[in-house]
């Protein structure tokens, strides 16, 4: 093993960790929604792509960089997520899984194809000066945009963690997630809490989308891939577990980057799906999830 190889391995791992933070933020949205409402958001990748397009449009039309645009995207996503939950998803909470699946599939189809109709099939890129900058960490060279994206993702995750542990609404949401009936009995407005939760989940994925535009070009066809990626991450980390989603994001980020280094590029996600199968079978609650009492 040459030191060249070790260096490129370290380079790949660090790149994977940084990208993995953004993946983690995206998956956090899916995990929070499932953890609280037991609804699987089959439109998650589509929402991510909408976030990416909004960030791109802000840059393309108004010269707002994705980092500055991020809070706007997050707020908008929160509002739309809140409304979507109230208007469309709430009646489906108690319905069978296949109906929820069909509903969110329809929502996802609409979102992805609205992007296609508005922005066309070509890939869109945000050109930033910082994309040529890098930080040096000993022998490692880290892309500046990637570092920024990871730091922001981590900061948002930290804020979210504070929200769920320190604020009244956050604690109520956790209470409603643990015990739906109990929350109703003590008089929590579960519908509102669900809407807030969906809003937060949407804001996470919107923010992750804005960050992602600084790393890769956006096309409408990324949507399905990201929905799958988010599933893989949350299952590996533990569906419904916040730290699990972040950890899963890092794990998948690193495994993709390392697999990309060692294997043919086309084989790299095989590893992720293999990991998903192993985790589903041996630890279906995920690496950090709690066992559900069914």
């Amino acid at each position: 093993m040459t030191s060249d190889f070790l260096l490129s391995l370290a380079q790949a791992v660090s790149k994977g960790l940084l990208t993995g933070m953004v993946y983690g933020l995206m998956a956090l949205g899916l995990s929070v929604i499932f953890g609280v409402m037991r609804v699987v958001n089959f439109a998650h990748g589509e929402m991510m792509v909408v976030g990416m397009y909004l960030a791109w449009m802000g840059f393309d039309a108004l010269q707002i960089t994705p980092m500055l645009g991020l809070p706007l995207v997050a707020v908008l996503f929160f509002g739309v997520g809140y409304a979507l939950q109230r208007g469309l998803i709430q009646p489906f909470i108690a319905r069978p899984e296949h109906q929820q699946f069909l509903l969110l599939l329809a929502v996802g189809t609409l979102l992805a194809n609205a992007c296609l109709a508005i922005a066309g099939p070509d890939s869109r890129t945000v050109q930033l000066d910082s994309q040529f900058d890098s930080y040096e960490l000993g022998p490692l060279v880290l892309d500046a945009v990637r570092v920024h994206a990871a730091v922001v993702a981590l900061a948002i995750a930290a804020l979210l963690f504070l929200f769920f542990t320190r604020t009244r609404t956050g604690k109520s949401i956790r209470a409603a997630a643990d015990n739906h009936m109990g929350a109703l009995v003590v008089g929590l407005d579960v519908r509102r809490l669900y809407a807030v939760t969906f809003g937060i989940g949407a804001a996470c994925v919107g923010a992750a989308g804005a960050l992602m535009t600084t790393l890769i070009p956006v096309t409408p066809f990324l949507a399905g891939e990201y929905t799958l990626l988010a599933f893989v991450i949350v299952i590996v980390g533990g569906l419904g577990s916040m730290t699990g989603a972040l950890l899963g994001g890092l794990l998948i980020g690193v495994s993709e980057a390392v697999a990309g280094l060692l294997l043919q590029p086309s084989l790299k996600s095989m590893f992720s799906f293999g990991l998903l199968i192993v985790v589903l079978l041996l630890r279906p609650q995920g690496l950090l999830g709690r066992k559900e009492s069914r």
Partner: protein
Amino acid sequence: MTARAAIGLAALLALLIAAPALLGGYGLSVLILVLYFAYVGQAWNIMMGFAGQLSLGHALYAGLGGYIAAGLYFHYGIGPWLGIFAAVAVAVAAGSIVGYLGFRFSLAGVYFALLTIAFAEFTRIGFDNWEWTGGSGGLFLKVERGVVDLANLRGGPVMFYYVILALAVGALVLCRLLLESRLGRYWLAIREDAEAAQAVGVPVLWCKMLAIMISAALTAVAGVWNAFYYNNLFPETAFAMGRSIEMTLAPIIGGLGTLFGPFVGAVVLTGLGEIFTAAGDRLDIPGIKQIFYGVALLLIVMYRPAGVWPWLAARLGFAERKP
């Protein structure tokens, strides 16, 4: 079955048999699509509608079936009627692995669905890198114009129409027989409550295994038909999640667990698809067809969540009891 329903069915079957003489090329191609979705929907419905197991990875079985039969024909000239046995065997083996792992480790609902997706994706990437089947570049069957060779499934749309019609009718009859058998009844009981079913003597694991094996076998046959009809196969599409989802739509929209739901759903979906394609071409906006489609799905799931067929059947006076 009421006399009225029997007459209606006989008339419909006669019409379908006469269809190639009545329809032009376009009409026939649409009808072929309808029957294809009805058939694969029927196969998927056995898993979800009867036994209550949500599979979102059925492209795995269709893809394997198509690739095995097409590969055998392409490399060794082994005709599809023989190759279909290998195709079905491989798909049933794959289904048994997915089923055994999923059911043994008691994955339910979404978790089971994700397992099925994972296996399909895993296989997709494998085929992307397998030279025997052409890798990501695809596998192509030679197209010979004007030849009708039923033994090798080489021919025009009319031949493929009759094959898929026979398959669709056969699957309907098979499902009806299954529902009137002990196995079918046991599936329904498992769908409703597996633990209570086991308490009245239902061997739950074995029944679920039979469901996935029968469903995978039927789906593999669809895959073979599909490969020889379109003459090309790409891992990117054959094993895609989109392909799996496509198979679930007709039975969900038509009415899960009903016998005619997959047919009605296939008519609704393909009909809407064709209308939207025409409208989309006129509007010339990319994705507009899918947007119409999304809206239609949304409206159906919001206002007819149990499916179109139970509602329609009540209207027409052929009440099919939802088993």
